[in-house]
């Protein structure tokens, strides 16, 4: 068995599974010859199980090889009375020693592969960085690291590319709000722009300018008409009301087209 050329986690996994399968074959030989004791067989079964578990796991555990190596040595030492068993356990030991030597290399390869898998998509990373640029200069580094960490967590959970980009887009959507909070600019104007797509394919631009907690001004464009609304309430509530208004207008324009 050769482990030369193993570069990726999948290749390492296949090699380990093959090794486990080899040990199973040895166990079958032992069983046929009835030469080893039940304890030796149990040790070999454990060795096979450990190999398979190591091969199937996403993370490569070098401690499993230590256990495997100890088991194989134990069987080898206790099988001196049987030349056939000695030669077979000797082969297993060769494989185990080879694996032990290769472990650091495979371990590094699997870690690299796992890291690649965990890495967020580039577009989401770029959007996250863009959302940080609007923040005050002294806060940028902190939020860049914090938001990047969250993006990594999302990616590590197996979030799709779309989900990662949506997360980053939400950061951009709230970036001005965060900037206002960091600058302590409660009472100043804050601006928020959002685009909603209508059911009929038309779009409406919601332009929301707010003096938080005092008054919000919204401009809704729909089917060529502009609507101006002043709402004395919180910005969040205004936004929700405007989304509702926009959806009603879209439904109306779609009905007009159908007619």
């Amino acid at each position, binding site marked *: 068995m050769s482990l030369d050329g193993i570069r990726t986690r999948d290749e390492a996994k296949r090699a380990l599974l093959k090794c486990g399968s080899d040990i199973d074959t040895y166990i079958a030989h032992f069983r046929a010859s009835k030469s080893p004791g039940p304890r030796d067989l149990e040790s070999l079964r454990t060795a096979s199980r450990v190999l398979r578990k190591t091969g199937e796991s996403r993370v490569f555990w070098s401690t499993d090889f230590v256990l495997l190596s100890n088991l194989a040595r134990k069987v080898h030492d206790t099988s001196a009375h049987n030349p056939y068993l000695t030669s077979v356990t000797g082969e297993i030991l060769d494989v185990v020693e080879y694996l032990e030597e290769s472990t650091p290399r495979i371990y590094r390869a699997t*870690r690299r592969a*796992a*890291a690649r898998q*965990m890495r967020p998509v580039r577009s989401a990373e770029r959007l996250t960085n863009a959302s940080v640029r609007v923040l005050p200069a002294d806060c940028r580094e*902190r*939020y860049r*690291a*914090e*938001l*990047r*960490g*969250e993006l*990594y*967590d*999302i990616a*590590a959970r197996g979030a799709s590319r779309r989900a990662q980009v949506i*997360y*980053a*887009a*939400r*950061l951009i*959507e*709230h970036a001005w*709000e*965060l900037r*206002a*909070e*960091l*600058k*302590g*600019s*409660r*009472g100043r104007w804050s601006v928020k722009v959002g685009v909603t797509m209508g059911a009929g394919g038309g779009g409406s631009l919601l332009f929301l300018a707010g003096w*938080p*907690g005092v008054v919000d001004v919204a401009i809704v464009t729909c089917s060529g008409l502009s609507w101006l609304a002043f709402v004395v309430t*919180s910005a*969040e*509530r205004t936004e929700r009301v405007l989304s509702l208004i926009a959806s009603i207008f879209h439904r109306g324009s779609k009905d007009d087209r159908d007619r």
Partner: protein
Amino acid sequence: MPKQPTAPRMTLPTLLVLRALLEDPSREMYGLEICEAAGLPSGTIHPMLARFERLEWLESRWEDVDPHEAGRPPRRYYRLSPDGAQRARNALTTASAKRSAWSRLVPGLADGIGLA
């Protein structure tokens, strides 16, 4: 020089975040955890966290972890300060009282926002 506001605006998302943090005030949580506990979309709570941190209701610190060992960047953990926990409880109580008043006027409102 940032102004020190006297009290934060208590919007529904704000109350949800406070409720999530108050479930176990001594526990440190990072941004995504808070989002999940509050039932809010990820990436929406940082303005709120920044506001509470500015008001000193929240304390935050970087996770003490080696990024190379962990295979990921460190997280920023948040926790309610003792004073902040008390203020958050008061805010939730006030919001709950307001909700009760509204629910007397508009039956069915109490179930809608889930701030029991």
